[in-house]
């Protein structure tokens, strides 16, 4: 079902957390709300499910205005960060709880619980209690419980934050599989960009209660609208250089770096300060604009190495390259930037 937040605002007392947010989530789409801690992701999620009353604006499920509906009547499935399973009930009872509340017959309850258990692969665990399950299994139970009522929308608040790295990888694809199989509209809250990029159809990046950009993961990565977005996506993260417009080039003061002006920067006045974003994969032995510097840090990631290169003016560029052993900390090197892949931002962080 399509979800629409129409000029939604939320304030806690005098503190305004979200102002005039408009966000549309398509039917069957999985959307990530991505942003730093405290930017209002959970607040948005809790407004959708009805735990928080909105202070302004409307929330629509399909064409139905649910703004003033209590959570019980919204039919929203929520998976909490801590899973919030009912510890005194078995897995079966946990999944059955929403159905029992809805007054379904016990035959019907049993049938739907089995169906859900099959979907999330927990059939052998139905008679255990939550305390006897691993984190990933608890996660599956929480998903089953959230989905068993066939909700209009599934909300996930940092569902993977409590899992270890390997399980996180597994559950990432599991959640996506279940979402695709059920065709449910889903909103995933996360501050992990990898999760957002790998699991979702679209990403909405939030900062301080506003949506800065909303796009598919690829679009977002290749065409960030602000320096904030560029800095948020990508691991290892993008590096920024401070530059000044000088003639038909951007120069980095106190260094010999001269980058060609990109198209959007044609009519910038001489001396305008800009910031240049360079992703680690676009800086290395291959490229067209040479940059000299000293290696200040090397991090081995197994298949690749991450190098930090300190420029003459003290700023740092990152480069990711296949593992090589000929370079060590302290070496002077000259690598190049692929100048057609750089992003330029003005002093407010807007893309030029």
């Amino acid at each position, binding site marked *: 079902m399509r979800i629409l937040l129409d000029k939604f605002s939320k304030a806690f007392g005098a503190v305004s957390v979200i102002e005039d947010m408009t966000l549309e989530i398509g039917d069957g789409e999985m959307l990530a709300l991505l942003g730093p801690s405290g930017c209002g992701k959970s607040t948005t999620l809790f407004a959708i*499910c009805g*735990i928080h009353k909105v202070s302004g604006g409307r929330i629509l499920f399909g064409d139905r205005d649910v703004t003033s509906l209590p*959570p*019980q009547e919204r*039919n*929203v*499935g*929520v998976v*909490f*960060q*801590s899973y*919030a*399973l*009912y*510890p*005194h009930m078995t897995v079966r009872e946990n999944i059955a*709880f*929403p159905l029992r*509340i*809805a007054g379904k017959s016990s035959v019907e309850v049993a049938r739907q619980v089995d169906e859900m258990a099959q979907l999330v692969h927990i059939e052998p665990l139905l008679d255990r209690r939550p305390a006897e399950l691993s984190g990933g299994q608890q996660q599956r139970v929480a998903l089953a*419980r*959230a989905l068993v*009522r066939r909700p209009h929308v599934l909300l996930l608040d940092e569902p993977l934050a409590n899992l270890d790295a390997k399980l996180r990888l597994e559950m990432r694809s599991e959640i996506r599989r279940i979402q695709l199989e059920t065709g449910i509209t889903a909103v995933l809250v996360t501050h992990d960009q990898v999760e957002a990029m790998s699991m979702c159809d679209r990403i909405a990046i939030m900062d301080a209660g506003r949506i800065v950009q909303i796009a598919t993961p690829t679009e977002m990565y290749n065409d960030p609208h602000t320096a904030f977005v560029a800095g948020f996506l990508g691991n290892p993260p993008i590096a920024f250089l401070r530059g000044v417009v000088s003639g038909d080039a951007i120069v980095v003061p106190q260094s010999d770096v001269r980058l060609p002006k990109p198209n959007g920067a044609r009519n910038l006045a001489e001396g305008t300060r800009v910031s240049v974003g360079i992703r680690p994969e676009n800086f290395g032995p291959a490229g067209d604009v040479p940059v000299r510097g000293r290696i200040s840090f090397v991090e081995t990631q197994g298949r690749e190495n991450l190098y930090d290169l300190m420029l003459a003016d003290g700023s740092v560029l990152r480069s990711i390259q296949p593992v090589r052993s000929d370079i060590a900390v302290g070496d002077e090197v000259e690598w190049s930037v692929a100048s057609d892949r750089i992003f330029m931002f003005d002093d407010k962080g807007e893309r030029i």
Partner: protein
Amino acid sequence: MNGHQKSWPIILVITILSAPLVLAYAYLFVDTITNSPPGSVVPHEFTLEHWSFLWQTRPGRLSIWRVTLNSLLFATTSAALVVVVSSMAGYVLSRLNVPGRSFFLAGVMLLHAFPAITLIVAIFIVLQMVGLYNSLIGVILVKAAIDMPLGIWLMKGFYDTVPWEIEMAGIQDGASRFTVWRKLVLPQVRPGIFALALFAFLLAWGEFILPQVLAPSGNAQVLSVYLASLIADDNNFDMALFKSVGLFYIAPVLVLFFVFQNYLMNIYGGGTKG
């Protein structure tokens, strides 16, 4: 292993210190089933006459079983009242955003610290006016009211440890706030409820001043008052009878305590579930 070796001096000291107490209790028990010749402390014959109060009612007194029933009624009913009210009030104070919440919290704290006994004259007058003086219902209400602040505070502590998300999950699953409380939250605080019930029961069972002042005679007499009336009786003062009734009175407490001591510990542990 190591722990045992380190702790034996402590155990020795404790044993020596508590030996007189243990001996006194043992002697108390022996005294109730034997007779000693005058002037001696060594018993010379076995007898059950000191326990005859169990099957013989003395003139002018209530039957011991009637008194025991009163005590049981008094203790269970006031404990039940305390548990029912505390489990609800504690939840409200812990979770719901009621107006004046901090005022109520402070009030409960203050009431708990307040020496209720200073109110006894006022309570006495009130009970007489409403006609509950010398009745079991009167003391039950008063006792429950006095224990309630402690109960509410304790239950609030237990509720505070229940994760907020569990309730939110319940609400999202379509349950009403009341169903969430009854089906999801209450089972989490069961150890607390149980401990509080036991605690309130023991408190009421041991209560003396309130029944003594508010229901001293007539059919509402409870065990503690009955026991006190034995010593107050100057005419036929019977030390052995007093001891036997005393033993009879504390027996249930000891049994409850030994059976449920883990639950009672729970109350001091602040509700972290084991």
